[in-house]
């Protein structure tokens, strides 16, 4: 394999890791506050549809992205209502939200565009265009560093850079701010937060809504950055891979980056190579597809390090002495 091939695989790794990373950080905010979110998939899907649909109608990808985030926020609010206000089962709520998105996106797409549950293809301003970083063209001829800068680092759309920037930002919010301290505390022991005079409900809503914004960006990127339009069920389990990455990352921002890059790499390799011939045996493409899930199960089983979730995760808070 030459440098160019490696760079191309890594380049598509970055692009495929972006929606995973945004969704994973979304889940991180929610779960650190004690709210399980298996509805990442649904929120991404809803956002992907509305981002594509509105971008198509308005011809402006940013308005589309805003609409995507809005739809994701709406689903987050439902999740908050069910799991915080009505103290319902967070897993069931997340599942219902995903199904709601699966159904509604096709229903609305059919009503609006009559193309069998997809949006028309996006062109021009309705898509996120690649951003060429300064000096990318000038540095391109420089050996090694040039191609790496030109091919791998430069030339992605804005949301890719946003996603990668979100990693240090998330870390800083969680571990260096008052909000972060309270957020982590509410996921560990909400009673401690409540008796300290801070509203558990408000904190958890804040976390769930942040999760909605990030999921919205992930979906918008999917339909208007990675691909040019919405197709039915286009998230294809990415929300669950993001959830897997979150566990893999033990609920930490930097580890989340590594986990998403790893899973992105697996996807990139599977897309490019199909079956991988290892001489002695052939790794079927289906194995590559399943590998993120298998890895997550292995992690969950505690064979490779122990993943300890936030202590109060999934538990609703009822005041008691």
């Amino acid at each position, binding site marked *: 394999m030459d440098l160019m091939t490696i760079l191309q695989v890594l380049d598509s790794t970055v692009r495929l890791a972006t929606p995973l990373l945004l969704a994973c950080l979304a889940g991180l905010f929610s779960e650190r506050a004690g709210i399980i979110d298996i509805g990442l998939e649904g929120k991404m899907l809803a956002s992907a549809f509305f981002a594509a649909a509105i971008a198509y109608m308005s011809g402006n990808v940013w308005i589309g992205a805003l609409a995507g985030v809005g739809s994701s926020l709406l689903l987050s609010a439902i999740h908050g209502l069910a799991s915080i206000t009505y103290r319902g089962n967070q897993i069931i709520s997340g599942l219902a939200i995903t199904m709601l998105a699966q159904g509604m996106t096709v229903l609305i797409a059919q009503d609006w565009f009559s193309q069998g549950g997809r949006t028309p293809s996006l062109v021009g301003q309705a898509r996120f265009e690649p951003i060429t970083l300064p000096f990318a063209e000038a540095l391109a001829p420089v050996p090694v560093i040039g191609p790496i800068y030109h091919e791998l680092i430069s030339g992605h759309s804005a949301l890719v850079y946003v996603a990668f920037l979100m990693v240090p930002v998330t870390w800083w919010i969680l571990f260096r701010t*008052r909000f972060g301290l309270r957020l982590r*505390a509410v996921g560990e*022991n909400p009673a*401690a937060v*409540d008796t300290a*005079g801070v509203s558990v409900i408000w904190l958890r809503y804040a976390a769930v809504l942040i999760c909605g914004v990030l999921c919205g960006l992930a979906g918008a990127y999917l339909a208007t950055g990675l691909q040019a339009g919405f197709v039915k069920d286009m998230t294809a389990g990415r929300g669950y891979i993001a959830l897997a990455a979150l566990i893999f990352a033990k609920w930490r921002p930097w580890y989340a980056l590594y986990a998403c890059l790893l899973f992105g790499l697996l996807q990139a390799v599977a897309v490019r190579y199909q079956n991988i011939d290892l001489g002695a045996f052939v790794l079927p493409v289906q194995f590559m597809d399943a590998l993120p899930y298998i890895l997550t199960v292995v992690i969950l089983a505690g064979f490779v390090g122990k993943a300890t979730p936030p202590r109060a995760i999934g538990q609703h808070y009822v005041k008691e002495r």
Partner: protein
Amino acid sequence: MSDTEPAIELRGISKAFGPVQANKDISIKVMPGTIHGIIGENGAGKSTLMSILYGFYKADAGEIFIGGTKTQIPDSQAAIAAGIGMVFQHFKLVENFTVLENVVLGAEEGNLLRPSLAKARKLLKELEEEYELRVDPDARIDEIGVGRQQRVEILKALYRRADILILDEPTGVLTPTEADQLFRILSRLRDEGKTIIFITHKLREIMDITDTVSVMRRGEMTATVKTSETSPTELAELMVGRKVLLRVDKQPATPGDVVLDVENLSVINSQGVERLRGVSLNVRAGEILGIAGVAGNGQSELLEVLGGMREATGRITVNGEEIDLTGRHSDGQSRRERGIAHVPEDRQREGLIMEFHAWENTAFGYHHDPEFNSGLLMNNAAIKEDTARKMEKFDVRPPDPQLTAKNFSGGNQQKIVVAREIERSPDLLLVGQPTRGVDIGAIEFIHQQIVSLRDAGKAVLLVSVELDEILSLSDRVAVMFDGKIMGERLASETDEKELGLLMAGITEAPDKPVEEAVEEQLQARDARKAQIHG
């Protein structure tokens, strides 16, 4: 003092939960710079009242005055703003945060953490010197012992500039020496002008530390008196509403053969901490062995091993036959087959399935018993019949086998458990905290049942954190500390003071002040437990 405004005044506070009236028209005044005790049985409404004061519940009626001004307390934030601090019975700490982070949480200055933490560190140092409240600010909560965790709770309140400090059953987790230390801290706080409300069900503590005391019974405030003008007997009567025996009426024991023999029992928990360290003891037929100790020193693990809920190493024989401590034949089922019955420490989490009907609970643990089965299926009719019989004999109210367990009062729930375990006339009865959260009437009844089982020549092993209960029920007392038996005494030849020192791990007269010795022992224990986390 009479011309100053009370620090807290409650007027006509009432609170109902559905059909239950938890607080009924309660009024009290607490003067500043005093320690005011509130005493009452379980379920008397003490905690509800304090929860209203801390903004957890909203009172249905009544007013709260703080320092003479009428104050609304809709949430904890308002309580804190009004200068109220609360130390809950179950601490409200984030376990994987440091002491400093816990103190700062909710009282941060500005949006960034660093300045807040620095400021808190300084203030903690001052508070430490002023009140003797020593804790390492950088230690994680799960690395320090409960005594220190309690100090963190007090520090949290002081950091928020609380003038009024409420402590809910604060000594339950402390050794007597630690409790004395706490009392000294509280006295000093009082001398500095703080007002302290001290909730307990222990008469002795009221007499030791409070200036005034209010008694609650069934949601009502029955009396408020000066502590110096009352006596334990009078308070007990006010609590219960009738004369009570403070001692259990029982004849001397006539111990027979050894029923339970435990040798060198050790347990390592899932975190890798050794919770039992070479425990040896025995219980004879016709005697009650009491295990005294502060909660969390291995008593629970001992009961769990004996009851088949936990694996262990060592050797246990029952009636001379060895029982399995690991593997398939080390579970509740096989223990019961060996004639061991078990009234567990926590009836709601262990002894009963709260969502099951009373009749289903009567078969709990004995559901494989032939009398409850016919062939492949369970014989529900037989179980119901048996339940009705037991309910009548133990005066369970209401005597309805169809009612779910959660709909019975604490005392009646406990009676269902005790009936199930005692009625089979086991060779050995394990009893953990038999009267926790139980009203006095049921306490007397349950104590009688335990004593009469002993008199029928059965062996009883009793675990209780209530020293009074241990001393009044047991024939022999063994004291546990940090997973070891520190010593054994005949109940008739020992007293609270001697047992109190054993409970802190001190077996012989120390060559330094007692408190220092206790502190040393506790630190050694906590360090041992924390090693694993490090």
